[in-house]
């Protein structure tokens, strides 16, 4: 067997870790999948034990680049849970605004990637062009495109200036028409439906067995959303609905994310127009000994933070669980038995935080490496073409 070279050259310039998934195949069918994790492990939990509560909000923000405000959101709620602190009303609204803004830009990012894996490069460019608009909104609100640094245990670090609000509202309204165009282009496209329907199915029992979270679970009919189940911040003061679909395939995960963007726009607009006046920080001084748990519905699912403090200003233990940690093992049931050309889009369907589905190596049963990430993306794009031919599109 020739010396197999670890495939570093990624097809898509995304973050890549060598040998993230390795699929064992027989001919076209995927037989087994082995997931190698840990290339991104930076020992954040140990680090935050050496930092004060205020400092570790910044450490926690650098866990995942795309959902960089979900972790501080959950962490601050965990610290507030320890002391039983109540956050002022205005801070709750600002937190909701930042959380929903990030959900839109994260879903757009994923939409672009999914389009790209299916061979629609124009969808990729459009989605990312639209995403720049949302990043401008976030920049107006928080000063940075991502890694906003808005959260602090007990409230919010910066206030939203009243004169910014009309500008932001105008920008959000300008996003909706392009979003409609993207939705039509993606959801009503017969080839794309044929391409994503019926593959990578996660049944409801499996979703419960794996305790999947977020869109991955909601696509399989498990109505589970932290914003609805245990409302926090300003989510209970806004009329929005949770989107659940039943058949758990890749198309449903696509539908959920697209429709969730509309809900986020609704929440954003509501919170921006009804921003209550008042304090933005509860001036948390001392944190009593004890333990606290904070959860938040990140774009990919529920993030979970457990904090234990012994009265000093440093946490004794700080446990972090990203949503993808629960969603990743679901590959064992969604990808086995599928064809190779669908492998990339199924892996991308749960929107893994460090989306490196192209870091894929496929071995045939004797272990010689057959395809790498690029070939799999090409396979998936070719399948789109075949379906386009059959549909006579």
């Amino acid at each position, binding site marked *: 067997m020739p010396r197999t070279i670890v495939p570093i050259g990624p097809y898509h310039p995304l973050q890549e870790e060598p040998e993230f998934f390795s699929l064992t195949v027989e001919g076209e069918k995927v037989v087994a999948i082995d997931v190698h*994790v*840990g290339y991104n*492990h930076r*020992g954040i*939990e*140990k680090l935050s034990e050496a930092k004060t509560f205020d400092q570790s909000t910044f450490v926690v923000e650098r866990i995942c680049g795309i959902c960089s405000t979900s972790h501080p959101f959950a962490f601050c709620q965990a610290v507030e*849970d320890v002391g*039983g602190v109540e956050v002022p009303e205005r801070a709750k609204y600002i937190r909701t605004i930042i959380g929903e803004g990030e959900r839109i830009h994260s879903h757009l990012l994923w939409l672009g990637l999914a389009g790209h894996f299916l061979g629609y490069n124009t969808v990729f460019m459009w989605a990312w062009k639209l995403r720049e608009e949302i990043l401008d909104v976030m920049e107006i609100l928080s000063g940075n495109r991502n890694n906003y640094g808005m959260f602090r245990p007990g409230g919010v670090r910066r206030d939203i200036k009243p004169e910014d609000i009309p500008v932001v509202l105008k920008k959000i309204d300008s996003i909706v028409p392009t979003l409609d165009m993207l939705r039509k282009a993606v959801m009503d496209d017969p080839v794309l439906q044929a391409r994503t329907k019926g593959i990578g199915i996660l049944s409801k029992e499996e979703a*419960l*067995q*794996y*305790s999947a979270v977020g869109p991955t679970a909601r696509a399989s009919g498990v109505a*589970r959303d932290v914003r609805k*189940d*245990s409302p926090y911040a300003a989510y209970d003061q806004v009329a929005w609905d949770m989107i659940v679909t039943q058949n758990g395939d890749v198309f449903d995960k696509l539908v959920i994310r697209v429709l969730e963007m509309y809900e986020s726009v609704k929440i954003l607009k509501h919170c921006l127009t009804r921003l209550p006046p008042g304090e933005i920080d509860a001036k948390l001084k001392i944190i009593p000994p004890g*333990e*606290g*748990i904070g*959860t938040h519905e990140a774009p990919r699912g*529920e993030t*979970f933070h*457990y904090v*234990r403090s012994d009265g000093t200003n440093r946490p*004794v*233990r700080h*446990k972090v*669980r990203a949503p993808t*940690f*629960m969603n*990743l*093992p679901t590959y*064992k049931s969604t990808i086995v038995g599928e064809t190779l050309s669908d492998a990339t889009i199924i892996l991308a369907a749960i929107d893994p935080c460090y989306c490196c589905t192209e870091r894929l190596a496929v071995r045939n049963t004797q272990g010689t490496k057959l395809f790498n990430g690029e070939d799999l993306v090409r396979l998936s794009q070719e399948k789109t073409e075949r379906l386009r031919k059959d549909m006579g599109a």
Partner: protein
Amino acid sequence: MTREDVLKDFKGKFAGDILEFTDKSPQRVYVEIKPGSIKKAALFLFKDLGARFNIATGLDARRHLEILYHFTLEDINLLLSLRVKLPKPFKTSSPAATGGGPMDSPPTTGGNDGFVPEIDSLAPLFEAANWVEREIHELLGINFRGHPDMRKLLLSDDWPEGVYPLRRDYKEWDPKAIRDRGV
């Protein structure tokens, strides 16, 4: 099933095993149970009450290693955490193992002379527990009996055996590591 029924039902079933029951707030309940009965309790919560296994948190309290299994019951908005304490062998007599004191044992043994407690694994019950138990085993050094594939999850291959980063007495073992900014 309201919140009270669930708690009453749980207390009734595991009266013998519960060591401590703290009802902290409407959404948070912490229950300490004997390490032996974790499998029964988890199965009851997961199968009968339909709770979702959220995550397990392992931590090194000075006198003992502790694992918290967090279960979420969405419909009644309750997060129930089962706490299990695994006492470290507190040999007061022999000077070597001073328990939580500053360890002078060579770094290779990591934890106080390689003490690795045992507990039943929940992975056979539900797939969700598989990865988190591998992570706790690797970072904290707790063995899970009956875990289907106990491989290394996060740490690199050249990580020395028996060194557990999340233990309190973890010390830097890599001579080549550079910790200052060199400015």
